[in-house]
């Protein structure tokens, strides 16, 4: 192991170490737009998971039902910026499906559905 790799696992280096280790500093310039409420869900055609990291597999398990990016980050207990990279990996592999639109102001029908829903809780 090089000194550089050691750094990733150095507890003393602060809160960035674990997230940084998970994504190895990678970024995803062509990643889909992932917002707080963007819905993600494990695909029914998920590929072989043996090559995935523990965190990726945790996400696959969480996303057996549809969840928002914010929920995945909260349950995984990692910063949003990190979960977005991990999710992008899975989306690229076709293991996770995503709502491919940025948040839009709801139309009348959607507002009515939300109104009825909130009244009913």
């Amino acid at each position: 192991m090089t000194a550089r790799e050691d750094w990733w696992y150095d507890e003393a280096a602060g809160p960035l170490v674990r997230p940084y280790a998970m994504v190895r500093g990678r970024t995803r310039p062509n990643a889909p737009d992932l917002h707080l409420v963007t819905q993600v869900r494990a695909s029914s055609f998920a590929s072989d998971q043996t090559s995935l990291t523990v965190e990726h597999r945790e996400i696959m398990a969480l996303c057996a039902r549809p969840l928002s990016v914010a929920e995945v980050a909260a349950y995984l207990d990692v910063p949003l910026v990190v979960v977005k990279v991990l999710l992008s990996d899975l989306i690229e592999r076709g293991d996770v499906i995503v709502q491919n639109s940025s948040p839009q102001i709801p139309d009348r029908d959607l507002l009515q559905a939300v109104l009825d829903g909130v009244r009913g809780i």
Partner: protein
Amino acid sequence: MVFVGSDGRLTVPTAVKIVIAGGFGTGKTTMVGSVSEIPPLKTEELLTEAGVHVDDLAGIEGKDTTTVALDFGRITINTKVVLYLFGTPGQNRFWFMWDELATGAIGAVVLVDTRRLDSSFPSIDFFEHRGIPFVVAVNCFDGAQLYTVDEVRHALDLDDGIPVVLCDARDRESSKSVLVGLIQHSMNRLEAAV
């Protein structure tokens, strides 16, 4: 309604959100918790020591970072629609998060504590300037109902069109009716616009 994201067999719901804003300690987290179907969750954004939002992990190794937490709850409306409620961070300086929260939102509830009316001014300014529908909810802390709705409206210099209601953020029915009022206000605004 359009449902995108599908692998032929599975789809994902449409997500909508409401922002719960207001000054420090006005009851934002309490309101999220009283209507959410799950205990409020926390998610964190990364910031550099200087307070700059980290939205890219490249080149930040070895730099000192800090986090800002957002708490949020969820209400499953039906199999096709899910509503999220986001409490804004207590400190007003994290405006980049407010922008992300406000984009595409149904609207906002601005919670007000009449003992510290001024602490909710920045929230009101924010939503007014962006033209985002909002209602003002006066959280009635015990024995602290010092003003009437009209007095609050006047003190906050609110347009007549902005609903002002009294509430108890700890109470589910009370918080529910605040949300209902906001959604109706958003629908009225939508209708007025066409």
